[in-house]
């Protein structure tokens, strides 16, 4: 078996300031990895570099492609990388409006990725869009409504449907439950867990919410000042943290 994603010595600097440095890990098919750390720890920079939104200064991000096996996505041609982004990869933004076309109906939003890979049958596209809306618990009669008419939680679920409709193998998520009410968060978490399980997705989730990673992530990476200070099984890192920073992070969580 080959890792789905192999990251080697990834580094990104903003001038003299370190965004992230020395990051290496393997992600296996079906694994969900959380990346935690406080604001400015470099977790979002790392996610951007992994997802191809930001060119790193050093390192390799090797993805096990469908056709050609493991390939370094950083040295791929741009068309190849963009093709990857709308087929095998998906990116769920913290703010749904960054990941949706707000002027396009829910059905059009979900259908866009299908049309981007060549779907040209309106009826089939619409069928799939409605099917996916159902899977993220949005009623079929909302298919022609624009996202503006949706609540925050619905927008986020629509964004997930839009991303998963082409059956990606790797999903990047940036604070997917941030900014949502607690009860809405719970529903979204359950939805994500179910989809990850049913589709055999691998995912990399950046969040500052330890409760979210405990429920979603198999593995956890803790970042501080642009470096990974600790990684391992999620519950191991949270229940038996080895690094001083992780111990501080875990002990700082308010108990409910």
């Amino acid at each position, binding site marked *: 078996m080959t890792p789905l994603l192999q990251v080697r010595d990834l580094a990104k600097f903003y001038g003299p300031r370190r965004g992230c440095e020395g990051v290496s890990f393997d992600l296996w098919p079906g694994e969900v990895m959380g990346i935690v750390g406080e604001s400015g720890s470099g977790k979002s920079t790392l996610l951007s570099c992994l997802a191809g939104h930001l060119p790193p200064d050093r390192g390799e991000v090797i993805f096990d492609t469908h056709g050609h096996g493991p390939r370094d996505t950083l040295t791929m041609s*741009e068309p190849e990388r963009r093709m990857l982004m709308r087929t095998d990869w998906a990116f769920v933004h913290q703010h749904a409006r960054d990941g949706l076309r707000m002027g*396009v109906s829910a059905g059009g939003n979900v259908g*866009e990725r299908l049309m981007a890979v060549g779907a*040209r049958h*309106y009826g089939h596209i619409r069928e799939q869009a409605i099917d996916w809306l159902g899977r993220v618990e949005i009623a079929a009669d909302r298919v022609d409504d624009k996202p503006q008419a949706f609540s925050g939680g619905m927008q986020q679920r629509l964004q997930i449907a839009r991303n998963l409709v082409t059956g990606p193998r790797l999903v990047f998520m940036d604070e997917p439950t941030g900014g949502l009410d607690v009860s809405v968060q719970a529903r979204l978490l359950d939805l994500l867990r179910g989809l990850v399980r049913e589709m055999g997705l691998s995912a990399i989730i950046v969040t500052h919410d330890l409760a979210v990673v405990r429920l979603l992530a198999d593995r956890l990476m803790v970042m501080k000042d642009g470096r990974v200070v600790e990684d391992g099984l999620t519950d191991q890192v949270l229940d038996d943290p080895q690094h001083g920073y992780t111990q501080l992070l875990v002990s700082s969580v308010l108990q409910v």
Partner: protein
Amino acid sequence: MSDYNFAYLDEQTKRMIRRAILKALAIPGYQVPFASREMPMPYGWGTGGVQVSAACLTPNDTLKVIDQGADDTTNAVSIRKFFEKTAQVATTEETARASLIQTRHRIPEEPLTEDQILVYQVPIPEPLRFLEPSEVETRKMHALEEYGLMHVKLYEDISQHGAIATAYAYPVKVEGRYVMDPSPIPKFDNPKLSMAAIQLFGAGREQRIYALPPYTQVVSLDFEDHPFEASKADHDCDLCGAADSYLDEVITDDAGGRMFVCSDTDYCRARRAAGHIGAQGAPYEEATA
């Protein structure tokens, strides 16, 4: 002799525009940036088309200008007079006699020939602009042939109206490569885009020129289950009886009276001159034409 340089623009400018035109012809459907000049008319009045025409005109040309198919509307008359004054070229309203036709919103009904050039006035040359506001992103989409978004627009049409409701500026794919906005011509005209004449598109405000060489393959985008249809009003011309031309609906009184007439005024005139009469038409008299 007028005090203007021939066709208003200076020779260097015309040369620059001709280079853009040649490049556009070499890459059909690709939008070539050019240094659009200030023209003595406002944007939206055909400044792009006028610059392209100015760069193409020679003293021996015969110019025809139409706006919505008509030779006698303000825009058409102004541009025709502009070139009469600055280039002293012959002008005509007859499609067949013109060597260069500048148009806004129509393709003449009469098939054009290899000896003719059709120049379009274009307001917004970017077909993807409706959904993607970033020029950087749309250029990248063209470069990488990422045209899924164009179908999103058609999808939205069908989902809202039950059919592709885009009736003009209907997007096309050129030679299987570039997606192009044919300017706001009715989609009825789309099938004519594959023609014998050279077609040049000029957008003054947006500073873009693009082109279709003769006999270029131009395909209107559609869905398998919602194929493209070149629609027109389901009617014959009330003046000349033509069943095959694009029609304007004209309100004739405040009691619901209306008539459908050819939008191509020269086509209608020629048919009536040849003796065709529509439902509300009168016999053609040369003097009243």
